[in-house]
């Protein structure tokens, strides 16, 4: 089941490895280009990304004294060189400008150090950002640079641009980030060779594939490299917004749903991990370096606990080999294995605690089970759950979760009847506030929430039937529909169809054309004859990168991994994406950020008062206790 073992021998990894080294080296060069002690002020967005390409202690070795998250808040430092590492976003520029201006103003005061400012854009500097900095009064004394970190290796088979705002931009009709996706894909091809065949489905995918071809002409890519990835399948999140609305039920997806995973890190309460006595949240790294996790991540939650039990037995039996040791040799062998066993033991402990906590939050929680029931009924039989949704709203349950099921139902049944549509929208506005007119408008624009237009031939019921999306028997057969307890993610299904020798491109094209979008097609990229010859000599399964424009879920990633182990496909899949997403993130990206500082200020004030009161209370209690003690002591003395 481990995805790691399979990947070790793949040719494509060689190119990826050199890419990873290249990026790391580039960053160290940047650090060295700024001599002496320095502080890095970093877009919070990038901290995780950075930790994926190098170890934080390496920063110290390169004279980085401080790592400060970017904000407008002033801070004081005696460090002469301030290095900003930011995304080229307009909103970040304001913060950069605030910082630089504050520090420059401090400089004019006496006894302060003269500081130098460096602004490095990740992955590229843009004209508009420079312009905005200029308009905000940042003078020419700043030195600009670029750090070309675009595709970040999240794992051996997952590459992400980690552009969390990508989907939000598409919602707003700004597709400019596609240009940067294209640059990233051209860039990686200079390491893994030119990808000879490109398939695409979806509006954005089509634009991207055209951009890729044009950009290749403009840049002189070396076409003599042996292509290590043979196919690129570009898919568009907008064509399947239904799947992310469904609760992810594989181990990694579940962790994401309940605690959130960002750049392979999950921040967990220490008691979740079975560590008591700690207060600070603990960061848990979730990638294939944790062998046990790489075996667990794709499993359906129902199978996780039994698997862990089995694992625990095997670990304890490994410990037992010590008892059976007959001579020094056996014992030596045991000692040799000991660190491995211990590591496995520790990891096992963590995952068992985590699984228990997940259990309490899911199977031990009637709300969760009820929700899951409604979800599955919708998916399997299109059974509607209007009353349930209405109840949820009446009880003022979390808006995101309400919208998730509301949108899921809308997409499954092909939209609400006129009256129902207005009713739900009205309920949401009255309950959650007027500002959500924007949310509703965006959801409508995305087709996630709509009015029904009579019976549509392109509805979900037809898709379900034609593509055989439901597999009730998922537990017994190893099938990727297990990630949603029987519902197969549509895009993964389409990828399977495309590379199934019995079905292939024509079937794929028809399905996409009938049910999803007019924009479907394929394109070839020219490669040199020599490269072609070399490609023929590769005996392994060819590699296909499925690139998700607009985000992929952990459940889908797991589904792809499981698909790799099923026998029907001719290729080995890896994943590329603009970012990793889930239902909550997609819904949240439709929220308009309104500057409602008044409410926030009130709230802050309230919390502050509460804190003060609490402290007063505590002090009062303390005093009371002290008084008590005194009294007791006095009493003792009297006695």
């Amino acid at each position, binding site marked *: 089941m481990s995805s790691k073992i399979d990947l070790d021998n793949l040719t494509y990894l060689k190119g990826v490895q050199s890419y990873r080294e290249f990026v790391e080296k580039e960053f160290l060069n940047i650090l060295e280009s700024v001599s002496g002690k320095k502080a890095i002020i970093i877009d919070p967005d990038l901290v995780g990304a950075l930790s994926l390409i190098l170890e934080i202690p390496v920063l110290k070795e390169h004279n980085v004294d401080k790592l400060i998250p970017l904000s407008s808040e002033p801070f004081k430092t005696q460090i002469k060189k301030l290095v900003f590492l930011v995304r080229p976003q*307009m*909103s970040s520029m304001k913060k950069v400008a605030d910082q630089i201006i504050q520090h420059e103003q401090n400089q004019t005061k006496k006894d302060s150090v003269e500081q130098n400012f460096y602004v490095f854009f990740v992955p*590229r500097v*843009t*004209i*508009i950002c420079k*312009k*905005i900095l200029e*308009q905000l009064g940042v003078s020419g004394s700043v030195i600009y640079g670029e750090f070309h970190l675009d595709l970040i290796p999240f794992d051996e088979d997952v590459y992400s641009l980690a552009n969390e705002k990508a989907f939000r931009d598409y919602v*707003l*009709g*700004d*597709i*400019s980030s*596609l*240009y940067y996706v*294209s640059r990233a894909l051209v860039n990686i091809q200079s390491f893994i060779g030119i990808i000879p065949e490109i398939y695409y489905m979806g509006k954005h995918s089509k*634009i991207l594939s055209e*951009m890729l071809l*044009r*950009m290749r*002409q*403009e840049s*002189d890519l070396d076409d003599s490299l042996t292509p290590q990835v043979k196919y690129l399948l570009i898919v568009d999140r907008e064509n399947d917004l239904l799947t992310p609305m469904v609760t992810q039920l594989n181990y990694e997806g579940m962790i994401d749903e309940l605690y959130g995973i960002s750049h392979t890190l999950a921040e967990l309460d220490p008691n979740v991990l079975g560590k008591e006595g700690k207060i600070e949240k603990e960061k848990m790294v979730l990638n294939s370096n944790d062998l046990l996790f790489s075996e667990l991540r794709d499993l359906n939650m129902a199978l996780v606990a039994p698997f862990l039990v089995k694992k625990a037995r095997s670990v304890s039996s490994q410990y037992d080999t010590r008892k059976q040791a007959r001579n020094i040799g056996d014992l030596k062998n045991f000692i040799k294995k000991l660190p491995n066993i211990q590591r496995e033991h520790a990891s096992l402990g963590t995952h068992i605690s985590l699984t228990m906590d997940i259990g309490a939050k899911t199977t031990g929680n009637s709300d969760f089970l009820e929700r899951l029931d409604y979800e599955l009924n919708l998916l399997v039989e299109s059974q509607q759950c209007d009353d349930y949704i*209405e109840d949820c*709203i*009446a*009880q*003022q349950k979390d808006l995101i979760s309400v919208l998730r099921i509301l949108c899921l139902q809308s997409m499954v049944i092909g939209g609400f009847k006129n009256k129902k549509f*207005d009713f739900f*929208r*009205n*309920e949401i*506005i*009255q*309950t*959650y*506030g*007027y*500002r959500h*007119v*924007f949310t509703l*408008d965006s959801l409508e624009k995305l087709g996630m929430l709509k009015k029904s237009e009579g019976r549509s031939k392109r509805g979900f019921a037809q898709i379900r039937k034609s593509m055989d999306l439901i597999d009730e028997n998922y537990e017994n057969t190893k099938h990727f529909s297990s990630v949603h307890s029987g519902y197969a993610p549509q895009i993964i299904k389409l990828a399977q169809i495309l590379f199934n020798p019995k079905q292939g491109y024509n079937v794929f094209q028809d399905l996409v054309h009938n049910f999803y979008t007019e924009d479907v097609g394929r394109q070839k990229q020219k490669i040199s004859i020599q490269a072609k010859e070399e490609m023929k000599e590769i005996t392994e399964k060819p590699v296909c990168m499925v690139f998700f424009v607009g985000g992929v879920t952990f459940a889908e990633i797991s589904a792809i991994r499981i698909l790799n182990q099923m026998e029907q496909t001719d290729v080995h899949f890896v994943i590329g994406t603009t970012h990793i997403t889930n239902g909550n993130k997609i819904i949240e990206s439709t929220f*308009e950020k*309104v*500057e*409602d*500082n*008044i*409410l926030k200020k*009130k709230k802050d004030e309230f919390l502050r008062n509460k804190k003060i009161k609490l402290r007063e209370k505590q002090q009062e209690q303390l005093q009371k206790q002290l008084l008590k003690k005194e009294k007791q002591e006095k009493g003792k003395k009297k006695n």
Partner: protein
Amino acid sequence: MENPSVHWNQFDRYYYQKRLVFHMGWNEIDLDHYLIESAPFGGLIALLRDDQKIINIKNIKTNKNCIFIYTCSGKLISELDYGHKQRVKAFGWTLDEKLIIVYDDCEIVVFDIFGEKIKTKCITSRDSTVHLVYKAKVWNNGVVILTKKNRLFIVENLSQPRFEEYSVPENLGIVSDLEILQPKFSLTGHTEVFVSNLAKNLFIIDNDQTLEIEFQEMITHLKVSPTGRLLAYYTETGNLHVISTDFRSHFLEFQMNSKIKPKQIAWCSSDTVLLNFEKKNTLLMVAPSQSFLKYEYDEPLYLMTEEDGIRIFTNSCCEFLSKVPEVVVNIFGIGSTSFSSLLYDASQSYEKESSKGDEVIRSKMDQLPKAITDCITASSWVFRRDLQKKLLNAAAIGKSYLDNFVHDIFADMCKDLRVLNEVRGWEIGMPLTYRQFEKIGIDLLIERLINRKHHYVALKICEYLRIRKDRVLVRWACQKVKSENETDEQILKSIISKLGKEENVSFASIASVAYSESKNDLAIKLLDYEKSASEQVPLLINMKNPGLALVKAIECANPDLIYLVLLYLLNNEDINENSLFQILSNKDMAINLLIKYCKYKKKDLLYKLYFQLKRDPKVVGLLKITESLSDKINLEMKLKIRNESLIAFGVSKNNFLKKITEDNIKLVKLQQDYQQRLELVFIGLSINQTTAKLLELDLEKEAKKMKKTFKIPNDRYWWIKLRALAKRHRWKKLYTWAKNEKSPIGYDPFVEICIKNRVGNEALNYIPLVKDPYNQVKFYLRLNKFEQAANIAIKEKNQNLLQHVKSLAPKNLNIPSHI
């Protein structure tokens, strides 16, 4: 044929050779009348008339304010007009043969060799006083200036805009000479400046400190060796000293016992110093061992130090003086017995068809490879083509005896020598030695050739060496564009015929030249051949053609380029809103980007954009609402804007948005009222939250009004009230309410909320009202009321349920096990 060694002079353990390189092609130039600077690596020489010398009027060339630029062979390249306003204080060359001129008011200008200004820089301090140059020095790409008021400015790299001021010691006084140690040689990585003054001091100044050394006599000349390791200085009483630049060791003291000042001090190689005593017509060469050699001249001299020797210019010729390397001595030295010399002789006898050579070579096969490489290396040093041929021939013959000799060195040397011989010719006049060639590299050599407009030679060299030639072609085309005798059509045709099929050619840079020559049509036609949009777009903007620029930017979908055009459009006063909208119409990608920018920076333009370009009243309405939600405007304004949005929704026939917004306006008005009456914050709350707050405050009547006004469904109202009362712990009130009215949401929520708030006793009130007996049992169990739970089970006649209750109950309770 004569042996080359007859021209060698033995001097201080080594042989030196002074070779005649060129007879100068110039006429009637008297070096004595000029200030002279030459570019290193066999580069051009620049002559500026020395206005302190009296010259016979006959000898003055026509233009007074010009610098004459010649090749080393004395071929005139140009007469560079340096302007007549200021005086030239110093000048010098960059490696790629650009002339740097320092004027007396601290202005620094970089010219190309045909007199076009490439860059101008002026050094002024913050109080913008003008400084006057006292002494200045130019090196490579840097300039150091000492002003009349003894301030010291350094520009380390002219391509960057920065200059530094070094603080100067107060006792500097009048300066006699100034020399710099380039940053690449100094320990600190900064330029070090050596300054000697009349008060017999030497100062070493760098960016943060000054070292002062006192001497017994005044220093008149300072000169750093080409490797930066040694410093030669000459004193007023005629003593020459050589010390290390870190001032730790003293290598030489040589007494001239003469008060005649040398005109020039220069280094030949890194250890020998040359003194140019013009007045005595001698050139004196002094070695570290104090031995010396005199060359007699009857003409004025100019010395130009190179890395591996020194160029000597006189009125009539250009010579090159350098050490003879050991490999060459081994071959041509008289009585040399080295095997390379034998191999050379053997190859000569081959020429005479004698078999003697064969025996010689076979006698020491083991030494053959080294002898071959020696011959190849020696060929790189000699300038004479016949000798090059003979040496390479010797190597070739030697090579034929070996199976495994690496052919590449031989082939590469042949190629390189062919290139070198070409540029060493009189026509180009660049006497590059092989070592210098290795140092500057082929790229810089090509650059120099292009600069001198030897495009054809440069192209042929590129083709011969198989390196990229696009640079040569583009620069040729840029020249071509300037041609005035041809029509645009002809120019375009001839450029395309030569460059059309080449890869990597930057047509944009050619077009930009065409534009600066005000040949706009030609420029646009040339741009069509440009493959890269990032090159096209900025140029089209410069050419004031934003419409086409935007089309090209959108074609490649590069948001950065689109923004570039948009910002130009927004900031250009010639473009009014109407023409802006005209340019933008039907360009969705650009419009969306502009909207994004406007939201951030230019909100006033937003509405116009939507009205003019999107033609979607609904979006305009939503936009108004966004605006109205901002807390930067007051309530009155908010309501006003929301009312405006109603019109937009009306036009777009969006009844839902209209109704919701009407509701909202009503709500805000109500909230305003409550806020005034109750002195509590209401605005910003949703309808639910408002109702809940009213209920929490016991304002039942107002809450009912809300319910009625906004048609809150009964179910939801009950939920709101339930939660509000629970929040305030109004359990009694809750109970009376539940008793008096029938709940449309059942009583389960009542139980739940009581349990959540840990008022179990209250919860017990509602459990009998719960419809589903299973839930009743469940609730009782949660409250540990096992007996009641059991009773329900018994009443329901459900044995399993009873069993379940019993299993959970404590043993001491008497729960019946059967119904």
